């Protein structure tokens, strides 16, 4: 049954968007999009259950068999990502932001939901499809809609940072497109598995290596790998808070999947990591991201910018897992996708709660807020502990497997550096906790009127905070699936 309707994973949000535009009723659109996202989540979970243990489902769009037709191909790797994206989307959509983003008047709000649904549809499409050009199309759908979403933030600079994001994202998209074009020239096909099969004889051609370079750089821009991360802090800190939570929890994760899929499935681990030695670039960049971005986070005075820089650092952990190219390290990177989505999504939802009640998330404005909003602040602390990697939270699970993977490769220095970088996280999280709980509110900014956030906001934030603890104690589902996905990737097959 599920293999007959799996295309609905992408089609449902894609068609729900125009339905929202036609109906134009904000309340309807909100509930309708929530229902659609819930249906997508159900399909994703059913797919994951179906393909666990090495199963593969192939779907031929329009009845045209691959390699000519577009093929949707589900294995544990992308089923895991589908479940991750839809789960995060479901929690974040259930967050009641009390009237949507500030720059969108009531009579235009249906368009906001339509764009949000398109963004989800694009992200799910990238993940589900097995066709290189189809990936590009969905990449553009998700990117264009996320530029719009970022530009809806309340601050004037939201438009500017969305434009910067647009320029960077378009450059990334063009690089990706050129890479796909070169691969098409080398192999004459666009089906990913077909490319992988036909690339073998021309693997050492200059065109193939150039394609690899273009694809890696293009996706690295979208993923915000360290020196290409400049769009991210502004985009995350000026976007509407719900959008920041959504993008932080899903968009970079899908880009990571894309990078891993291209490296392992198309080019193959032996070529990328043994002949070209990509880890010689990726490992130093990951370590730099962990240290410089965490260092930058320490000096931020705005909670959202602090979290955004921390995201860049966390992406460093993911690419570090990628560069180990062994099952433990890669599984650590993959499990960190989920773990980081849970904690950073939760933290950005906490930011949304604080913004709603306090009106600002500048650290000065948050002084002593722990007494006025105890539940929100507690969720903030749980998320923060998870960022540090305290045992009992998801952050610990990721770091454990990352360090194990790095040690398996014999990179002792890198393992030490991972642990040292956790100290930087301790500093910036500690700084926030100190302000929230121990500092007296400034005379100029009385907080006596501030009350606890409403339940519709608090509940989703706490779902993610609770998940950060739950999956920190039970790793069967997350690490089990990630390990299986990592072994599948290393074996070169999706």
């Amino acid at each position, binding site marked *: 049954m599920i293999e*007959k*309707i799996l*295309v609905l994973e992408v*089609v449902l949000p*894609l*068609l729900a*968007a*125009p*339905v929202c*535009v*036609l109906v134009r009723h904000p309340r309807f659109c909100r509930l309708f999009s929530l229902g659609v996202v819930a249906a997508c989540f159900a399909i994703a979970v059913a797919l994951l259950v179906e393909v666990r243990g090495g199963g593969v489902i192939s*779907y*031929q*769009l*329009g*009845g045209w068999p691959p390699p000519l037709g577009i093929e949707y191909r589900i294995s544990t790797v992308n089923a895991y990502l589908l479940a991750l994206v839809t789960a995060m989307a479901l929690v974040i959509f259930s967050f009641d932001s009390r009237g949507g983003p*500030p*720059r*969108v*008047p009531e*009579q*235009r709000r249906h368009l906001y939901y*339509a764009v949000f649904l398109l963004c989800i549809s694009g992200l799910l499409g990238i993940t589900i499809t097995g066709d290189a050009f189809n990936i590009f199309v969905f990449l553009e759908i998700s990117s264009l809609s996320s530029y719009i979403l970022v530009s809806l933030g309340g601050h004037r600079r939201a*438009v500017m940072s969305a434009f910067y994001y647009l320029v960077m994202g378009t450059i990334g998209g063009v690089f990706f497109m050129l890479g796909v074009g070169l691969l098409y020239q080398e192999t004459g096909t666009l089906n990913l598995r077909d490319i992988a099969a036909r690339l073998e004889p021309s693997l050492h051609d200059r065109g193939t290596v150039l394609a690899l370079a273009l694809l890696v750089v293009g996706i690295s821009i979208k993923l915000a790998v360290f020196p290409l991360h400049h769009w991210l802090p502004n985009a995350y800190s000026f976007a509407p808070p719900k959008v920041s939570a959504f993008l932080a929890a899903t968009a970079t994760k899908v880009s990571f999947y894309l990078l891993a899929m291209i490296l392992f499935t198309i080019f193959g681990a032996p070529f990328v990591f043994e002949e070209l030695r990509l880890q010689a670039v990726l490992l130093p960049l990951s370590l730099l991201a962990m240290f410089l971005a965490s260092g930058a986070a320490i000096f931020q005075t705005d909670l959202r910018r602090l979290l955004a820089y921390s995201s860049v650092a966390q992406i460093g952990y993911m690419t570090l897992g990628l560069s180990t190219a062994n099952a433990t390290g890669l599984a650590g990177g993959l499990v960190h996708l989920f773990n980081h989505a849970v904690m950073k999504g939760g933290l950005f939802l906490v930011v949304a709660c604080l913004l709603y009640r306090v009106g600002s998330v500048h650290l000065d404005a948050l002084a002593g807020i722990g007494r006025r909003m105890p539940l929100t602040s507690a969720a903030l602390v749980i998320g923060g502990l998870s960022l540090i990697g305290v045992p009992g939270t998801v952050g610990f699970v990721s770091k454990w497997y990352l360090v194990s993977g790095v040690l398996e490769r014999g990179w002792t220095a890198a393992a030490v550096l991972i642990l040292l970088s956790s100290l930087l996280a301790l500093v910036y999280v500690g700084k926030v906790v100190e302000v929230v709980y121990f500092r007296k509110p400034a005379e100029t900014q009385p907080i006596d009127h501030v009350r606890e956030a409403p339940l519709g906001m608090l509940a989703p934030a706490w779902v993610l905070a609770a998940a950060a603890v739950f999956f920190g104690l039970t790793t069967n589902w997350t690490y089990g699936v990630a390990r299986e996905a990592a072994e599948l990737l290393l074996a070169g097959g999706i």
Partner: protein
Amino acid sequence: MKAPSRVREMPILRVVARALVPVILLFGLYVQFHGDFGPGGGFQAGVIFAAGLIIFALVFGAEALRQVVPVVLTERLMAAGVLLYGAVGVLAMLLGGEFLNYSALDPLTTGHYGQHLGIIVIELGVGIAVAATIMRVYYAFVGRRPGEAQTGADPALDTGAGGEAS
């Protein structure tokens, strides 16, 4: 603001536009529905159709075009075009095929014309969506006044005959 009004008063321009616009619209429809036998298709047809209407607006004023095609209608048509396309795909699924497998539409027609029917309808969806989008872009441009600050509200919606009311 003097120059555009002079252009609109030019009799040659008005007469030629009046004669050409219907032909352009007809040609758009030809490209749309002949697209499965010759060069053409929904995208090109949508662009030609919208271009014909925009020429009308350039000569007779955007106000005149708004009375024919209100801004809200373009928004609805954009969505309706996409939905028409998607609906064909979903219908194919309901009839037992894959998404967008037009051969599954065969029971609706006589013989093996499912592919033909499918491509005609989805191209119609593309044509509607493209024409509406291009007109909406045009409205967005002409709806802005010089020096106007960027606001969340869309000026194209606040002005003209066919605003929110329709």
